[in-house]
């Protein structure tokens, strides 16, 4: 297998991990809002 596939997986893995982090960030914000309300 061309090692370049690993690089592509790495790049998409980075994007995926970033979206998960943003999801939890927004979830925390919504939770905080609800708590304040």
């Amino acid at each position, binding site marked *: 297998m*061309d*090692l*370049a*596939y690993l*690089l*592509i997986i*790495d*790049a*998409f*893995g*980075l*994007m995926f*991990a*970033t979206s998960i*982090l*943003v999801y*939890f*960030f927004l979830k*925390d914000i919504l939770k905080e809002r609800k708590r304040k309300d």
Partner: protein
Amino acid sequence: MNIAPVDLSIIIGYFVILFIIGYFVKRKIHGLNDYFLAGRRLTLPIFVATLVSTWYGGLLGVGEMSFSYGFVNWIVNGFFWYLVYLFFAFFLAKKIRKSNLYTIPDQLERFYDNRSRFLGAIFNFIMVSPAPYILSLGIIFNFLFGVELWITILLVAFVMVFYTIRGGFVGVVYTDVIQFVLMMIGVAMILPIAIYTYGGFDFLQSALSNPELSLGYIDTTRHLTLTGTQTTQWIIIWGFIAFWTLADPGFYQRCYAAKDDKIPKKGILLSIGFWILFDICTTFTGIYAVAASQAGLLEVESALTSYLSIAGALLPPALLGLFLTGLIATVMSTADSFTFLGAMNISHDLYKKVFRKNATDAQVIKMTKIGILISVAFAVVLSLFFDSVVDMWYYIGTIGISAMIVPILFGFFYKGKKSPLAAILSMSMGSLTALFWVTHGFLNAEYGWPVYIGGIEPLYPGLLVSLLVFVFVNIIHVRRMK
């Protein structure tokens, strides 16, 4: 470089968002704890976003190294650092959060005395100079729009000063979240496109095997090996520079600001995952840039701007704008955090703790705002003197680490009685030795390259002297103190 209107709009949109955040975030500030540490309320996602984005500021420098030296960049700017981050996560993070302090000089005062704080604050101020990052931003804008470097440096400084002054640390962390997303997406999208356009590993191997590069001064034949063409000493010295983490004010500040004492450890471990993925992308983007240049498929102006060249050649409009914004965000997130840390050194460590102990919170916040201006002004002057980002990192790192590492580590891990005099002398002698070594090297430079005594890099004597002085003085002085 040709910038389409859509790309320009994305870049301008990014700056507008920074202004908006800076403007509105002020409402969240109700006191000094909010202004300095966002009320010690950082949750895990924010902790990771702000740590990853702040820590990673030298994207152009990393581009320069990957382009010039190849895969060894991942070793010296990645692997060594992960080891030190792991040490930090397992042995320091919790202790730091539990101490409930604000800065590294606070720690020095807790371990030693007020004079150690004073000296530590000065070294800290030098270490957190945003100069390399302001220079990087200046170079990016100069490259993109052809505007004079000093004008771009001043413009960047202005935007950063605005939202940092208004929002304090809250402004810094909220802008960091946006900047984190932009830098991750920007860097991750270019590598698959480079592979698709130029080819896989076969392309890299064949393009890099030609010893004569079009730029004329780089040997690329060993770019895909672990050590490249670098000497062991060069690699180890960068490994030592990774110890910077143990005295990095940004790491400490985020640990102090975490919501509880478990978040720093978890956050650093998660951040290491992001850094590994990110570093592989940046290193191979640099390698693709040099290989494409070697194969005559890409025109590169200089190693320092190689990322900009490859992005300009590969990305269509809109994606290019996104990449450039990611690149700017990477540098900007570090520049703003460092500026703020420098300002805290001035207001909290010097003004409040040394010169005016009865200052009110409002006075300290006011002094922090003045500190932001001083920190940026110092950085602007410094960045107009240096023309290499890597050089600037190297010298600031060498002198700062030689001063700070030994007293901090002894403070955390040595359980016996500690002498304040040992800390002060260790900091002064370590940094002076490194400074002397650097100056001597430059005075005897050959072909513009410093020639060090015995060929030894300045960090070794700096750290050695700092360690010996600390141990020796501590033994003698503690005996006398008894």
